C-alpha cells in the first residue's frame, strides 16, 4: 500500500463518512424529538437517488403517487379522528394543502420532460418530492401512536421500512441506477486527484451542517424543536405542539436523507433497497455518539466511513462485518462507563 492508495481510500472514506454523518445527525434528531428510531431513513436516500435517476433517463417519475396516497391517508385519518370526537368534522387545512401539493408535483413531474432539464432543476424537484414524505409518514404512521412505548415505535418503524422498500420496488423496479456526476472536473493537489463528486459531497455536507447548527442555535423555531427533545411536557406547556415538532423533525430527516441520496447517486449504484444499509452505518455513528451527542455522532460516522473504505482494501468480503463489529467495543465501553440518553425512557 503506497501513499496514493492511502489517499484514494481516504478520499472514499471521507465521501462516505460525510454522508453517514448527515444520516447520523438526522437519526439522532428524530430520536431525541420523538423517541422514534427512524429505520426508514435510508428510504429517503434511495428514493431520492432513484427519482433523480428516473428523471435523467426519461422514465416516468412515480414518486408523486406515493405522496398522493399518503396525503389521502392523512386526510382519512383526520376524518377518523373527527368521527371519534377528537377534532372538528372536517379534514384539517394542513392535510388538504399537502394533498393539493402532492397532486401538483405529481402532475408537474408527469407532464414536464425532465431529462432535458439541468441537474440543478432535477435535484430541486427531487427534494420537492422527497421532503413531504417525512411529515406524511409521521402523520400517518407515528402520530396516532405518539405516546406508545418506544419499543412499539421501533416495531412500527421496522414495518414502515419494509412497506416502503416494497413501494420502492413498485415505483422504481428492480434495476439499480446511477446518475450523472454534477461536474466533470477534478482538483489536482500534487500527485493526488480529488474527485469532483467528493468535493460536492463534502461541501454540501458542511453547508448543511452549518445551516442546521444555525437553525437550532439561532432561531426560535430551532430552539423550540430542541426544547421538545429536552422536555416534552415543558415544550407542550409553552405551546410547542408535539405533532408539529414530530412533523418538522421528520421533514428535516427527509431533507437530509434526500440530499444524501442526490449526492451519492453519481458515486454508487443505488437499488430500491440500498438505503437501509447506508442509513444503518449512519446509525452506528449515532450509537457511537450515545444517541445524544451530535458532534460525537458525526465524528463516529466519519470514522465508520474510513473504516469501511480501508477494510474494502484489506478484506473486501468482510467489509460490512468489520464496520458493524466496530459497534461492539463502543457499546461495551458505553455500558460500562456511563449512562447515555437511551436509558431515559
Amino acid at each position: 500500500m503506497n501513499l496514493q492508495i492511502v489517499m484514494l481510500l481516504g478520499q472514499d472514506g471521507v465521501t462516505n463518512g460525510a454522508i453517514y454523518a448527515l444520516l447520523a445527525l438526522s437519526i439522532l434528531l428524530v430520536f431525541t424529538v420523538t423517541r422514534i428510531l427512524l429505520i426508514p431513513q435510508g428510504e429517503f436516500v434511495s428514493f431520492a437517488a432513484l427519482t433523480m435517476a428516473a428523471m435523467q433517463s426519461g422514465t416516468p417519475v412515480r414518486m408523486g403517487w406515493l405522496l398522493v396516497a399518503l396525503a389521502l391517508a392523512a386526510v382519512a385519518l383526520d376524518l377518523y379522528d373527527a368521527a371519534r370526537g377528537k377534532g372538528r368534522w372536517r379534514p384539517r387545512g394542513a392535510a388538504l394543502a399537502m394533498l393539493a401539493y402532492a397532486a401538483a408535483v405529481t402532475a408537474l413531474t408527469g407532464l414536464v420532460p425532465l431529462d432535458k432539464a439541468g441537474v440543478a432543476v432535477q435535484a430541486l424537484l427531487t427534494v420537492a418530492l422527497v421532503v413531504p414524505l417525512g411529515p406524511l409518514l409521521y402523520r400517518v404512521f407515528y402520530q396516532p401512536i405518539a405516546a406508545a412505548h418506544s419499543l412499539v415505535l421501533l416495531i412500527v418503524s421496522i414495518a414502515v421500512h419494509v412497506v416502503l422498500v416494497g413501494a420502492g420496488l413498485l415505483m422504481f423496479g428492480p434495476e439499480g441506477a446511477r446518475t450523472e456526476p454534477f461536474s466533470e472536473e477534478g482538483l489536482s493537489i500534487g500527485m493526488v486527484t480529488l474527485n469532483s463528486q467528493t468535493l460536492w459531497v463534502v461541501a454540501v455536507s458542511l453547508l448543511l451542517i452549518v445551516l442546521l447548527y444555525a437553525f437550532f442555535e439561532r432561531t426560535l423555531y430551532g430552539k423550540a424543536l430542541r426544547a421538545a427533545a429536552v422536555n416534552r411536557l415543558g415544550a407542550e406547556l409553552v405551546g410547542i405542539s408535539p405533532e408539529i415538532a414530530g412533523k418538522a423533525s421528520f421533514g428535516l430527516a427527509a431533507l437530509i436523507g434526500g440530499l444524501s441520496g442526490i449526492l451519492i447517486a453519481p458515486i454508487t449504484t443505488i437499488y430500491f433497497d440500498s438505503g437501509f444499509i447506508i442509513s444503518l452505518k449512519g446509525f452506528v455513528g449515532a450509537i457511537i455518539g450515545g444517541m445524544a451527542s451530535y458532534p460525537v455522532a458525526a465524528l463516529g460516522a466519519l470514522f465508520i466511513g474510513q473504516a469501511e473504505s480501508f477494510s474494502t482494501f484489506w478484506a473486501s468480503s468482510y467489509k460490512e462485518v468489520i464496520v458493524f463489529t466496530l459497534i461492539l467495543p463502543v457499546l461495551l465501553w458505553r455500558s460500562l462507563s456511563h449512562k447515555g440518553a437511551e436509558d431515559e425512557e
Partner: protein
Amino acid sequence: MSPHGHQAPLLEVRDLCVSYGKIQALTDASLRVGDGQIVTVIGPNGAGKTTLLSAIMGVLPSRGRIAFAGAEASSPTIKSMIGRGVSLVPESRALFGSMSVEDNLRLGGFRFHPRPRRAQDAALEEMYALFPRLKERRAQVAATLSGGERQMLALARALMTRPKLLMLDEPSLGLAPLIVREVFRIIADLRRQGVSILLIEQNARAALRVADYAYVLELGKIVMEGPAAELANDPRVVAAYLGIAGKHQEMLAT
C-alpha cells in the same frame, strides 16, 4: 368574603372525575377561581392535587365540566388551555435543562412567535425586572441553577405565556425556608398585577396565608372549603394540616 364576587368566576370546575385504569384518582371535584383571586387546594400527599391541576390543564383526560372565562372548556387539551390563557407550572418544573435561562424564557413566549423582536424583548425585560436573579443568570444553563432559581425560572417562563390564570403545583417543594418566603411574596405580587392563581401546596400554612379562598382535598374528594382565613382557624384543618407547630405559632402571635 364571597369567593366569587359578582360576575362569573374565571375558572369553574364541576364534578371533575379522573381515573387511572380502575383507580379513581379524583371524584366529583368542584371548585371555582374568581378573577384576580388566589385560590389554594391543600391536602396530604396522594390526595389527587396534582391530578386535579393536570386534568384542568388537559395533561390528563377527565370527565366533568370545566368552564373558563364563561366559556365551555370541558375535555381540554394543553393547546386549547394555553390559548385561553391558562398556564401550569408543574411540580417537576419541566424546564429545558440544557438550554440557557434566556432561551427558556424566550420559548415561554413561543405561542406569540413570530412577533416583532421589540415585543419579545419587552416581555423578557419585564420578567427580568420581576426576577432580577434571572437577569444575572441569563446566559447560564437552566440545569445548573439552584432549586430556588429553577422555581423562579419556571414561574417566569409560565408568565411569558401571558396567562390570566396561573396554576402552580407545589411551588415551595424542596426549597429552603427563606426561598419559600420569597416565592410566596412573588405569588402575592402577581395577584396584585391581575393574575389569578390556583395554588396547590403541602405547605398549608403559607398557602392559607396568601390565599383568598381554600379547598381541602382528601382521597380524591373535596372535603372542605371556605375563605382561607376561616379555614386556617378551623380546628379540623389546624389538627390535620397546621399541626402542633401551628398552635405554637398562634400562641406566639397572641
